């Protein structure tokens, strides 16, 4: 595809500098550099979020006060949620790996609107700073929970408006990124790159982008309404003024449930990349996986009210939303079956990215299956707003999306930085992450079923044993994460040079050098086959092309 002789002349994107010093980054419109800007920002926010979670778990060691008071704890879980959801999980994989690899995987030199792309990053940073700034201003950090439910968010005296505006700005970053990706996929595919030759990561990003563009404005408007209500007391949501608090919940979840799919679909896309590469075979059921992404994106719009089964909605609404929720579980399940089937009769090399993917399949399945308990009315009424829900969404979001973000980091690290990390250490981190994760979150399923409500600073003494196990789990998990990140950071500086195609992958990013040249391809490739065509590789037997 790419011509090897010309490649040597092209400067790689890390060497190519359009501006001097730090501005080579801050003013770069190169999609790869912007991907790295997002990476740095998000990993930083991730560690802020981890630290907040760590403190929360310490507080949970004893039934009463352990280290922080109730008000601080409420701010902690709010900020943990806001940072992890709005600054890490929602933008995560699309902003980092989508930016970096979407253009390369479709054979383009950049996204459709490179300057808009850089602007999106600045919006992201501005939104993030708004959220963080509320910590240090008078009134104290926001204590509403990341869901900002009214009337509490209208009544509390803490800094609500600033993080809300932060989320509003982040929304625009998300919309513009979505717009950029949709246009890129439609307009910039290389010759021969038909829709059914798109890698499944691109399909997933494409489906996600549509959710970003269509759903995000709803939360933007909702947030503005809350701000207006707080400042001008109009009476939209505040029952004291004739408003309806349930209206807020509907509007909030009309965005925030599809947002769950913004979080998970790109991760599913990454899984569909990693498994074929390490199994060295084509994906099982390409079209089913591609269409199930679209199906999830579509049905995902019609299940929002399953977050509100106890809110006092009509019983008919509860029934309809429960039924639709059960149905949306099916395409996700089908994807899992397809992934496992892709391992069947493969030629499997068990490397770090694949181990993370296996961990994902296990954890995500638990997350998805316990989602059935929450979609079911009788059981949801009992476990909603308890630790069961906390466990469920950490299995899906952390066990799902974040674990795959780590998998993607290991999978594409050699390509992005041209360096190899220490494989043994990368694998050594996984048992800590796996064991720590399950200790930390599985106990929460039990706590929830026992009746421990979420967002509780103190709790009844009978729950203490489980809380202690959970807290110890958080230490083991964090240890695993430290090993993982330390290994990658070390590799960044001291890693051995990576080959162009260390895993034997066949999508377009593996046809160009590591790290990629400034504009990716010296000559736009002409695509003649599907994304996971390993037939010629298996003929050469040694595997590497």
């Amino acid at each position, binding site marked *: 595809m790419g011509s090897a002789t010309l490649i040597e002349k092209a400067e790689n994107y890390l060497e190519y500098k359009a501006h001097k010093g730090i501005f080579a980054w801050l003013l770069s419109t190169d999609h790869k550099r912007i991907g790295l800007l997002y990476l740095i920002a998000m990993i930083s926010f991730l560690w802020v979020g981890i630290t907040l979670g760590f403190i929360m778990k310490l507080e949970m060691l004893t039934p009463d006060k352990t280290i922080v008071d109730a008000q601080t704890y409420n701010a902690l879980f709010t900020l943990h949620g806001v940072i992890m959801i709005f600054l890490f999980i929602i933008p995560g994989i699309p902003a980092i790996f989508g930016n970096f690899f979407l253009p390369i995987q479709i054979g383009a030199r950049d996204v459709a609107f490179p300057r808009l792309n850089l602007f999106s990053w600045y919006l992201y940073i501005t939104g993030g700073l708004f959220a963080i700034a509320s910590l240090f201003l008078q009134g104290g950090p926001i204590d509403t929970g990341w869901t900002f439910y009214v009337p509490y968010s209208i009544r509390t005296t803490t800094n609500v408006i600033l993080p809300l505006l932060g989320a509003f700005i982040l929304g625009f970053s998300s919309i513009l990124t979505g717009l950029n990706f949709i246009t890129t996929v439609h307009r910039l595919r290389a010759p021969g790159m038909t829709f059914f030759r798109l890698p499944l990561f691109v399909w997933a990003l494409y489906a996600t982008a549509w959710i970003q563009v269509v759903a995000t404005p709803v939360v933007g408007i909702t947030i503005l309404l809350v701000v207006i209500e707080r400042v001008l007391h109009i009476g939209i949501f505040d029952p004291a003024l004739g408003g309806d608090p349930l209206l807020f919940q509907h509007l909030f979840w009309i965005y925030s449930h599809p947002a769950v799919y913004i979080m998970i679909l790109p991760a599913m896309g990454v899984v569909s990349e990693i498994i074929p590469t390490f199994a060295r075979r084509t994906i099982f059921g390409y079209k089913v996986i591609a269409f199930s992404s679209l199906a999830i994106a579509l049905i995902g719009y019609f299940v929002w009210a399953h977050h509100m089964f106890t809110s006092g909605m009509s019983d008919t609404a509860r029934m309809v939303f429960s039924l639709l929720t059960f149905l949306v579980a099916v395409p996700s*399940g089908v994807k899992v079956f397809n992934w496992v089937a892709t391992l069947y009769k493969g030629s499997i090399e*068990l490397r770090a990215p694949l181990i993370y993917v*296996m961990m994902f399949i296990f954890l995500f399945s638990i997350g998805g299956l316990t989602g059935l308990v929450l979609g079911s009315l009788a059981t949801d009424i009992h476990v909603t707003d308890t630790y069961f829900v906390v466990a469920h969404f950490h299995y899906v979001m952390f066990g799902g999306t974040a674990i795959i973000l780590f998998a993607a980091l290991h999978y594409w690290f050699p390509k992005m930085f041209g360096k190899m990390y220490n494989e043994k250490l990368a694998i050594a981190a996984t048992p800590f992450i796996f064991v720590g994760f399950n200790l930390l979150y599985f106990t929460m399923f039990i706590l929830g079923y026992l009746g421990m409500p979420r967002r509780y600073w103190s709790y009844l003494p009978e729950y203490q044993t489980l809380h202690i196990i959970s807290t110890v789990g958080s230490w083991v998990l964090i240890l695993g994460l430290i090993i993982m990140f330390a290994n990658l950071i070390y590799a960044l500086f001291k890693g051995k040079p990576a080959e162009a195609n260390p895993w034997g992958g066949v999508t377009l990013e593996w046809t160009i050098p590591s790290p990629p040249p400034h504009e990716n391809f010296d000559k736009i490739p002409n695509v003649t086959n599907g994304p996971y065509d390993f037939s010629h590789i298996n003929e050469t037997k040694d595997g590497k092309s």
Partner: protein
Amino acid sequence: MFQTATNYAQKVDYVMLYIIGISFILLLIITISMIYFVIKYNRKKHPIASQIEGNKTIEIIWIVVPVVLVLTMFFYSYGVFKEARIVPPGALNVKVEAKMWAWKFYYENGKVTDTLFIPAGKPVKFTIVATDVNHSFYIPAFRIKEDAVPGRENYMVVHPKEIGSFDIACAEYCGMNHSIMYTKVYVVPEKEFSEWLQGKVDENYLRRYVASHTGGYKDYLTGSYAILFAKGCVQCHNIDNRKGIGPSFVELQRGFANVKINGKDTAVVIDKNYIRESIINPNLHIVKGYEKISMPSSVNILKEDELNYIVDLLYSNFVKNKQ
């Protein structure tokens, strides 16, 4: 460990078992095949992969079977839920009012309580309201909750069966003291309930009744510190050995307290009277080392029978238990 106190709770547990059972089997199939394939088709043993692009039959099966499975879950669960929404004729009406951070229960004859009393064997319809922000009226042992939303009247039906006392928690985040918005529901026989409703017996009588029928009088005094949570005592006074904003209740075990009375250091013997005084008029004698923050009087927080109950609880659990 998992308390079930109504037939409905039992049914919810069965729905749970059904869903979790099927889920567990699916998880097992997925995980075992995944690990089996990774071992069996390891590149060393299996250097050349088969390029299988799909298999219509299998794919249709694994779409149809899950659809059928989730539909059975839906119908089973919906059936159980629907039943719980029916208000039977003759149900007792209790209005539940939630506010930051306490519960109030209004009975048909105008009686108002902080802890809930309901008769066993008679369906109860709760009309749930909130006066400030969202709350959620949650009885884990009954497996049921319903939000209290300002400006709305939500409802919830329970069919209490077992005599006993069960926790009521707030399950919708409502600000600083959300986690201590606990109270108790006492399920008592219809006869005792109507006697109480008519004013023939007091709340403490019902509490003692429940205690004596669920493990004896001793249990009632040693079993639960729920009221200390419900009334906010534990915010400052721990029930274990740790220092809080105020002295731990465990310090009562010493049998005497070093206090300041009118600025003078004195040691006083701890008896029921001392405990009562300390609750009603806390600043009369302050335990040494805790002079900086004064405790508010609890006269307005506790009713007479609750005060008696707490004094009994603290005295018999901490003072009398001293070695």
